[in-house]
């Protein structure tokens, strides 16, 4: 915009100057013509007339031509550049002398402005009546400011081009200076949103963007400290509960052996059931907090879904049989390598199968299916159990959420959240389809390269 304005202003200025110089040249020619006319030529020989014209041309620094009344050219002084005092002394047609020299000289800037130098010549011409029918024509006067003007135009164009270039460079540098920290800040905030709590923006300079980055970093540090201490607290708490719980369990087991009556035994068994429940709860809390403390991409392990599924199936089979539930295992040969620690993959399948067996009444069926499907490993666990009410299907992955029709069954309310946390951290998905006739949980995981070492 500024450039456009400058261009327009420059154009106007040049036009004004050009007009001014044209008029100056015209005035010069007019004044010179008056001078020439005021001193009429001696009407003698053509030679005298020629000398007069040359003298006039030298004096006025114009080309002086005299035309007869009939309009025919009578005398021509020739270009004033070709004239010198010698030519007035009758050395005749020596105009060729020095022409090349003079033409070869560089035209000094503004030389014509002072009329003394042999600068470039004006393109203007003026004709003036000499009063006796003949008339004189003056042309090729000094170009007055035209050289300066041309030089100014050239200089202006160069300056404008340079200015445009400089402005573009400055703009690019500015944009880079401003946008780089903004881009870095955006990246840091994206990484933070993706769970990398250690993400920080580089602080460049004390400008607004630098201050924004500083305040972002301050906020990020607080969030990280809070989340870390919360997670550590949960992990420590779960950890610390483990030791007294072990002692309590062991003592209850010892008591169970010693008590005599059935009533007492029932009380001890009930207490043991509750310590088991506490143990599962604290273990699940520990698992969850550890999952969350992990860097998202920190999973360095791989496991074969097919072989882990067979292991877990072995572990669940006894329970299913004892519950009177038919357990169908349909696991592809594999290997189906996924980027998960085997223990975590076990947890995923065990939690899903535990739920399936738990919520399936005697005589029902639980099916574990594992296969590869379009570049992904898929595990599905189906049951013919009580199903999950439609309005609660979205909430089953929430912590401590237990479906209304699940209250009669034991559980920590953390099994499915753990499944989801593990699966999603490995870039997979877990979905649920449920009706009163049963539920199917489907886990898909991206296939990974098998371990090489």
């Amino acid at each position, binding site marked *: 915009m500024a450039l456009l304005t400058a261009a327009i202003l420059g154009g106007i200025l040049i036009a004004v100057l050009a007009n001014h110089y044209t008029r100056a040249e015209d005035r010069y020619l007019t004044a010179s013509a008056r001078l020439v006319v005021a001193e009429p030529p001696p009407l003698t020989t053509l030679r005298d007339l020629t000398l007069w014209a040359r003298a006039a041309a030298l004096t006025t620094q114009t080309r002086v031509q005299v035309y007869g009344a009939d309009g025919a050219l009578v005398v021509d002084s020739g270009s004033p550049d070709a004239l010198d005092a010698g030519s007035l002394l009758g050395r005749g047609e020596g105009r060729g002398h020095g022409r090349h020299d003079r033409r070869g000289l560089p035209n000094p800037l503004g030389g014509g402005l002072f009329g003394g130098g042999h600068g470039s010549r004006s393109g203007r011409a003026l004709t003036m009546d000499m009063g006796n029918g003949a008339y004189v024509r003056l042309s090729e006067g000094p170009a007055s400011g035209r050289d300066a003007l041309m030089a100014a135009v050239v200089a202006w164009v160069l300056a404008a081009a340079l200015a445009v270039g400089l402005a573009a460079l400055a703009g690019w540098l500015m944009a880079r200076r401003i946008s780089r920290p903004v881009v870095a800040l955006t990246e840091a905030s994206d990484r933070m949103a993706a769970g990398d709590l250690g993400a920080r923006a580089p602080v460049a300079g004390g400008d607004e963007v630098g201050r924004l980055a500083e305040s972002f970093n301050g906020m990020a540090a607080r969030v990280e400290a809070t989340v870390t201490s919360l997670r550590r607290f949960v992990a420590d708490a779960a*950890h610390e509960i*483990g*030791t*007294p*719980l*072990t*002692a309590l*369990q*062991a*003592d209850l*087991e*010892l008591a169970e*052996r010693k008590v005599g009556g059935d009533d007492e035994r029932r009380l001890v068994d009930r207490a043991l059931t509750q*310590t088991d429940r506490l*143990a599962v709860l*604290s*273990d699940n809390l*520990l*698992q969850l907090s*550890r999952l969350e403390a992990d860097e998202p991409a920190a999973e360095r*392990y791989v496991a074969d879904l097919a072989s882990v599924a067979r292991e877990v*199936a*072995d572990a669940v*089979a*006894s*329970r*299913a*049989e*004892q*519950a009177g539930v038919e*357990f169908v*295992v349909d696991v592809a040969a594999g290997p189906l390598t996924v980027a998960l*620690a*085997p*223990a*975590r993959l076990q947890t995923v399948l065990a939690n899903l199968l535990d739920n399936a067996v738990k919520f399936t009444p005697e005589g029902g069926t639980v099916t574990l299916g594992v296969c590869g499907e379009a570049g992904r490993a898929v595990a599905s666990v189906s049951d013919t159990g009580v199903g999950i009410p439609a309005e609660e299907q979205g909430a089953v992955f929430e912590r401590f959420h237990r479906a209304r029709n699940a209250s009669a069954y034991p559980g920590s309310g953390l099994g499915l959240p753990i499944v989801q946390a593990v699966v999603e951290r490995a870039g997979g998905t877990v979905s649920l389809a449920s009706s009163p006739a049963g539920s199917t949980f489907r886990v898909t995981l991206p296939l990974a390269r098998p371990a090489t070492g």
Partner: protein
Amino acid sequence: MPTMTDRAQTILVVEDDPAVGEALVEGIGTEGYRVHWETTGEGGVAFARDRSPHLVVLDVRLPDGNGFDVCRRMRQLGLRQPILMLTVQSDQLDKVLGLEMGADDYLTKPYHLRELIARIRSLLRRAYGEFSSTEADILYAGDLTIDRTRATVTRGGKSLNLTPTEFRLLVFLAQHPGQVFSRGQLIENVWGSDADFYDDKTVSVHVRRLREKVEHDPSDPAVILTVPGLGYRLAT
């Protein structure tokens, strides 16, 4: 089952928590083992070096360092006895680290006393090769003791009441720990001459009833295990 004889095996327990330590000493002691309890890694290493126990139960968190280091030092001293690590976390890392440092098995806190005892027995059986013969009079299955001559099954000194078929089934499985048997094989070996009258369902029904008597938690069997599509095996 304090029928252990003069050759009672010594078990070293390294555990700093007094409540857990006391319970372990009492619980393992009632199984007929001699138990020695140390509260520090230093004490544990010294006892292991001087007295050479048959097995070491080692807590991973100790006041003077962690159990992994203690485990490694015991191995460096040339001790070849089984070491059972008690880890506090159900973490892959602890398991891997423990096994790398020379532990033979691990158990995650909080664990059941009966599970600990079953592991101890299993490790001792593996290390000292006892009771592997099918002709042995005394058989072990988890924390159960089976006396073939007296036809009794006991746990922690308490007798379990099994029918003759259940007893034969348990004995057959206990004679081949870890080996998988199809229902047909079990009918042949347990029911014998009457085999023609029975089918797979019979086996399932008997296994289910047997579990209700021998399992601590029949809904989560740990002694007699189902192998999907194949049959049954005894936990090792």
